[in-house]
C-alpha cells in the first residue's frame, strides 16, 4: 500500500515515513504543497497524510482542490490546532480523519490502518498469551478456563500489553494509552493497576504473565 506524506517539517516527515515503512507501507515524502498537490492528484496513492500547514499552500485549500478535482483517495490530516471548530472545518473540506500534533505514532498508525484500502485481515477478536485470553468483542478475560473480572482501566491496560505481548511498554506509554497525556497523575498509578492485574491474573498460577522490567515498565509474556 502506497502512502503519500506531505509534511513541511522534514524531521516529522522522516519519522512518519520510516515508521510507516517499518510497518510495511510504501511511503513517499514531499515537503512542498504544490509538489504534493501534483503527486496527490495523480491517483497513484492509496492514502494521503497531509500536514495542514504548508509553506506554499494552505492545507485546507489543498483538500478542497483535491476533492473538487475528483480525487477520492482517503486523506488523513495532521494539525497543530486542536480547536473543535477547526477539526470540523477540516472534515467538511473533505478530509477523512485527523490527528492532532503532537501525536503518538501508534495513534497515526491506527488511523492509517483504519483508512487503508487494503483488504482487512480477518483479525481474531481474541488475544491470546499462553493460557490467558482476552476477547475484545465481549471484553471478557479468561485464564485456564476461569473468568477474570476486571475494572475498565485494568482491562484497557491488559489489552494494551497483550496486543504488544513480549514488548516492554514504559509507564508513560501505558498512562498515555489508558488515560491520555492531559492526565498527569503525579504518582505512579500504573504500578497500582499492574499490582491489581497481577493479583487477578497471576495469583494461583505457577507461570507469571505480567513482568516488571526494572526502571522501565512492564511486559506481558507467556
Amino acid at each position, binding site marked *: 500500500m502506497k502512502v503519500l506524506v506531505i509534511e513541511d517539517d522534514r524531521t516529522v516527515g522522516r519519522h512518519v515515513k520510516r515508521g510507516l515503512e517499518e510497518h510495511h507501507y510504501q511511503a513517499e515524502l514531499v515537503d512542498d504543497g504544490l509538489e504534493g498537490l501534483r503527486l496527490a492528484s495523480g491517483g497513484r496513492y492509496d492514502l494521503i497524510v497531509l500536514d495542514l500547514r504548508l509553506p506554499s499552500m494552505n492545507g485546507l485549500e489543498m483538500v478542497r482542490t483535491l476533492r473538487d478535482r475528483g480525487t477520492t483517495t482517503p486523506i488523513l490530516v495532521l494539525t*497543530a490546532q486542536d480547536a473543535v471548530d477547526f*477539526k470540523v472545518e477540516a472534515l467538511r473540506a473533505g478530509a477523512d480523519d485527523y490527528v492532532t500534533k503532537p501525536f503518538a505514532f501508534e495513534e497515526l498508525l491506527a488511523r492509517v490502518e483504519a483508512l487503508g484500502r487494503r483488504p482487512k485481515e480477518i483479525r481474531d477478536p481474541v488475544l491470546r498469551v499462553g493460557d490467558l485470553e482476552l476477547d475484545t468483542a465481549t471484553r471478557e478475560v479468561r485464564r485456564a478456563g476461569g473468568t477474570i473480572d476486571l475494572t475498565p482501566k485494568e482491562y484497557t491496560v491488559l489489552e494494551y500489553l497483550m496486543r504488544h505481548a513480549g514488548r516492554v511498554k514504559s509507564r508513560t*506509554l501505558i498512562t498515555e494509552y489508558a488515560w491520555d497525556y492531559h492526565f498527569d497523575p503525579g504518582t505512579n498509578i500504573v504500578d497500582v493497576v499492574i499490582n491489581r492485574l497481577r493479583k487477578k491474573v497471576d495469583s494461583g498460577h505457577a507461570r507469571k504473565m505480567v513482568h516488571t522490567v526494572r526502571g522501565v515498565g512492564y511486559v506481558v509474556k507467556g
Partner: protein
Amino acid sequence: MTTIRRRLTTWYTVALGVTVVAFGTLLYLERRQSSLRELDQRLGLEADLADHWLSESYNVLGRIVATQGLNRALDPGISAYLEAVRDYLVVVDTTGQVLALSESARTLTAVDLELLTAPLDSLRSPRESGTLRLGAPAGAVRYFAMRVEKAGPEIGGVLVATSARQVAFGPTELLRSMLFIAPMVLIGSALIGYWLAGTSLRPVQGIMDEVEAISDGRSLHRRLAVPISGDEMSRLALTVNGMLARLERSFDSLHRFTADASHELKTPLQVLRLGVERALVHPGVPPEILESLDETLAQVNEMTELVESLLTLARADEGGVPLALEQHDLRDILSDVAETAGMLGEATGLRVTSAMPDSPVTMAVDLHRIREMLLNLVTNAVKYTPPGGTVGLELDEADDAATISVRDTGIGIAPGDLPHIFDRFWRADPARSRTGERPGTGLGLAITKWIAEAHGGSITVTSRPGRGTVFSVRLPRRPGVSALDVAPDRR
C-alpha cells in the same frame, strides 16, 4: 438606561416647575399691581367729583361751612350729596378737623377716623394715594387724598378710601386657578418628558443591544448600522464601529498568534515525541537508556500539556473555544473518574468514596473537558491529602442543574489563598516548584474553572486548613443547547 431616562424626566419636570412658578408669580404680581391702579383711579375720580362739588357749591353759595357752637360742619345741603358716596369719604378743614363724612365713614371708630385723616395732615403733594391699616372690621384700606383749593379758605382737603382686601391679597381667583392648573401641567409634562426621553434614548438602546450581540468575541466582523440622520447617534455608531474595527484587528492578531504558537510549539514537541517513541520501542535498547527515554517522554507530555493549556486559555480569553457537546450520563463520567481516583488513592493510602443518584443524569457536555476537569480535581485532592485520609466524589441532581463535589480531608487551603487558587500559575507555596514533591503546571485549576464556566456553570470552593477542602461544580441544564454536530474526538 432607565436611570438616564428617569433623570432626564426629573430634570425636565423640575425645570418646568420652576418656570411655571416664576411665570405664575409674575402674572400674579402684575395682576395685583394693575388692580391697585384701577382702584386708585376710581378713588381719584370720586375725590375729584367731591372736590368739584365743593368748589362749585362755594362758587354759588360763597359759604359752605356752618358753625354750631364749637362744632363746625359742612352745610347739610351740601354734605347730603357727599354722604351718598359708598366708600369712606372725609372732608377736613385746613386745621385737619373733620367737616363731613360719608355714610360708611360714620361707622368707623374715632381711632380709625383719626388714622384715616392722618394722611391729610401731612400731604406732601396735592394728590396722594397709599394703604392704611385700620382696626377691624375695616382692615386694610386704600386711600386717595387731595387738597381742595378752590372751595374757600375753610376747606382743607378730601380723602376717599375703600377696603383694599380684594387687592391686598391679590386676585384670589387667579391664585386658585393657578394652584389647580400647575400640578396638572407638571404631571402632564412629566409624562410627556418620560415619553420624550424614552424616544430619544431608543436609538441608544438599539446600539446597546447590537453592541452586546457583537461583543461575544465571535461576531467582531459585524458593524452597527449607521443612521443617516448625521446626528449624535450616527456619530456614536461611527465611533463604536471604529472601536470594533480596532478590536477586530487585535483579536485577529491574537488568533493568528495562537495558531502560529500552536504550530511553532507543537512541531518541535512532535519531533521529540516521535524520536523518543521510536527509540523506546526499538528492540535491544539497554534498560538504563529506556528509563531515561521514558522520563523524556513524560517531560514531553508535560510540556505538551502546558502548551495546550496555555493555548486553550488564550483562546478562551478570546471567547473562541467551542465545546463538543454531546448527551452523556454524568454518572458514567464520574464512575470512570472514581476508578482512577481509587487507584491514585491506593498508591498513597487514601480511601476514595463516591455517591451518585440511581437514575441517569444526562446532560449535554463535552466529555473530554468534563473528564479533564474532574481528573484535575481528584488529582489535586489526592495530592494534598495525607495518608489515611478520605477523598469523596458526589453527584447530586436538581431540576435545573447537576452538582459534582470533590471532598477531601487534606491539608486545606489558607483563607488568604482562596481567592487566588484559580489564577494562572498560582501556587500556594512559591518554593513548591515543578521539581518539588507535588509538581504541576499551575494551570490545572485555571483550566478547571474555565471548563465549568464554558458549560455555563460555576465552581466554588470551601476549605478549612487542616480539615479539608470541598470543590463543587454546578452544571446547569441549558434548554437551548443541543449537541454540536462534531465527529467524536478519538484521542
